[in-house]
């Protein structure tokens, strides 16, 4: 039946009440009531709001969007901040694949990276997320200083062996540790070929000062007795769009940090952003012990044409 025939029939029999018309009327009435009620209700809410508010606030959401929220609409979540940060910390920053490049030709063992790192992560002097090692590959080759941190492997042996999923690999490449869950078995330390992990054998630094603070999994502070710590690629800084603590602190331009997906890394000292693939290609970049199949996310540029002579450290 097409539209014309319907119209024709309606014109022919205008006054006869049909079941169809009856239902149509009911529907219209219902819609009208609903619309009216809706309008009244929203009007009521609007009035209430108008009466009680006065200001709106601009907030940054977890996925980095600015939103405007009325101050009265905001309510404090019942969740404790530690739990919230733990959940947030499980998810990587969308679209990112963090990567670090360490230029060995520029390192003169200033150890400012270490100081900045230890300061941010509440570490004692002998506890290293980042350590500079004096390396000599074989007797005939020249010694060099090598900053060494967690390699944030794409095939992380530490994550594989963890019995409780306390250490985990995020979508953005960062390997993190949930120290509310860690049982302190130290299997991850045994599994790591880079000796990247440390353990809180005794009361952590300034434990009294930080006692009771919410635990930030992306910064791994406050450090917890009897649990693991290691380099986190400064996941908290990544979320803010900043460079990691060590990268920013280096006075000699050793570190580049950035996003593999964008193919761009930024030098922490000069703040110059360069193409990652070109940097790696032009400088003969390599990885630490790639034969182990760990697929590190840290690249090294060999200590060629060095800016500083090698000075062996005493300790």
């Amino acid at each position, binding site marked *: 039946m097409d539209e014309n025939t319907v119209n024709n029939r309606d014109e022919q029999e205008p006054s006869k009440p049909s079941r169809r018309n009856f239902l149509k009327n009911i529907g219209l009435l219902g819609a009208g009531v609903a619309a009216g009620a809706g309008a009244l209700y929203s009007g009521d809410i609007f009035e209430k709001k108008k009466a009680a508010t006065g200001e709106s606030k601009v907030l940054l959401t977890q996925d980095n969007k600015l939103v405007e929220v009325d101050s009265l609409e905001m309510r404090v979540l019942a969740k404790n901040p530690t739990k919230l940060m733990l959940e947030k910390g499980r998810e990587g920053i969308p679209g990112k694949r963090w990567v670090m490049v360490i230029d060995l030709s520029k390192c003169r063992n200033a150890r400012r990276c270490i100081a900045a790192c230890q300061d941010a992560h509440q570490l004692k002097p*002998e*506890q*290293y997320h980042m*350590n*500079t*090692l*004096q*390396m000599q590959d074989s007797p005939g080759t020249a010694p060099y200083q090598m900053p*060494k941190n967690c390699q944030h492997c794409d095939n992380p*042996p530490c994550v*594989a*062996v*963890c*019995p*409780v*999923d*306390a250490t985990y690999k995020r979508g953005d490449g960062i390997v993190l540790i949930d120290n509310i*869950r*860690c*049982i*302190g*078995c*130290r*299997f991850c*330390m*045994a*599994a790591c*070929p*880079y*000796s990247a*992990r*440390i*353990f*809180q*054998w*005794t*009361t952590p630094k300034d434990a009294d000062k930080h006692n009771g603070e919410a635990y930030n999994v992306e910064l791994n502070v406050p450090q917890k*007795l*009897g*649990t693991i710590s290691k380099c986190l690629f400064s996941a908290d800084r990544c979320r803010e769009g900043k460079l990691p603590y060590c990268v920013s602190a280096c006075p000699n331009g050793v570190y580049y940090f950035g996003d593999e997906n964008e193919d761009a890394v930024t030098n922490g000292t000069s703040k110059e952003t360069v193409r990652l693939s070109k940097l790696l290609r032009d400088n003969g970049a390599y990885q*630490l*012990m790639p034969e*182990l199949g760990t697929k590190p996310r840290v690249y090294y540029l060999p200590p060629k044409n060095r800016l500083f002579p090698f000075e062996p*450290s005493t*300790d």
Partner: protein
Amino acid sequence: MDKIISDLSHHIRLNKGFFLWMGFLVLALLACTYAYILQLRYGLGVAGLRDYISWGLYISNFVFFVASSLVGMLISAVLGLIGLKWVHPITRIAETIAVAFAAVAGLVIVMDMGRPERLANVFIYARFQSPILWDVTVITTYFVISLLLLFIPMIPDMAVLHKRFGSLPSWLKPVYKTLSLNWTDHPEQNRIIHRSVYILLILIIPAALSIHTVTSWLFALTVRPGWDSTIFGPYFVSGAFVAGSAAVIIAMFVFRKSYKLQDYLTDLHFNNMGKVLVLVAFVYLYFNINEYLVPGYKLKRADAVHLSELMTGHFALMFWIVQLGGLLIPIILLLFRSMRRPLPLTLISIAVFIGAWFKRYLIVVPTMSHPFLPIQHVPENFRVYTPTLIEIAITLFSFILVLIIITLISKFFPVIPVVETARDKGLDPLKRIES
């Protein structure tokens, strides 16, 4: 029959010697408990462990305990299923050792945890990719099967002793009655017991192989030199038989002396156990040669460092004492029949047993002492591992607990199966009751 019952059960009573021994053990246990309380309060730092050598005494001891518990399977299942009658008086000793060591092994691993109060996380957040989960699973399984293998063959003994052993302490009577499960030597009952033991004996073989293979994988599944080995499973299993057989021989000697079982644990049993020990020691020697010779021939850089530290470096003294005194010399001595008499065999077994403990230390610590990347800019105690007194006391705690468990089981239950011994001699254990 009465003589067998009284010979095998006369030790089941509370006497001065027992109280003295138990009193000593309990006091020692309490002293060592204090050490653990200190560790709970101040953290694992009270042990000598640090960031590079992060597994030490506790993990070595854990491996050793799992190893020692494996002998239950060797004696009961392997030798038992072959049909060797002479092992009958030894099976319960072997199972007692298996139960005690397996039970405490679980505790030893908790002592190594930085946050023992979070133990439940292992079950709440269980991640089956982790070998620790496999280990928890198989050790629990092995413990349960061992406990059943200790208990089920004991059911007839409980009934017989309850009915016929006049001097059974009155407070033990209801225990025996309950544990006897109303056994009356009915053919159907015996069939069920025989059946279940037979099934358990078969089940315990894969369970036992699993516990020590998985324990070896805690190391072999890492890439570190000295652990990165494909033969770690059989290497550990054969080593476990060495440690366990030595433990059984020592226990046989002690029980024979203190419970006066000379007529039941005869020179023949010691001679045969000596042969078992030398056999498993030969197998272990074979795996040792493989484990050291193969990487030693190629001398890849990391392996070279590891082997030279073991054989000529920091660990050389311990290494050679363990390999010669704990394995090679015992093998040579045990080839002579005169060395397999009770006393010399026991002395050799003590050397083997102690050697087996230090062998685990040599498997765990040297590898951790030499990671791929150099250890730099850290205090001296990060480079060299020295166990602390607290750590040693906590390790002793586990040994004392094993001794307490073995003492209690052996003191309040017949060490040697009564009914089985009677049947082997053609006697009917319940004859007088029925007539």
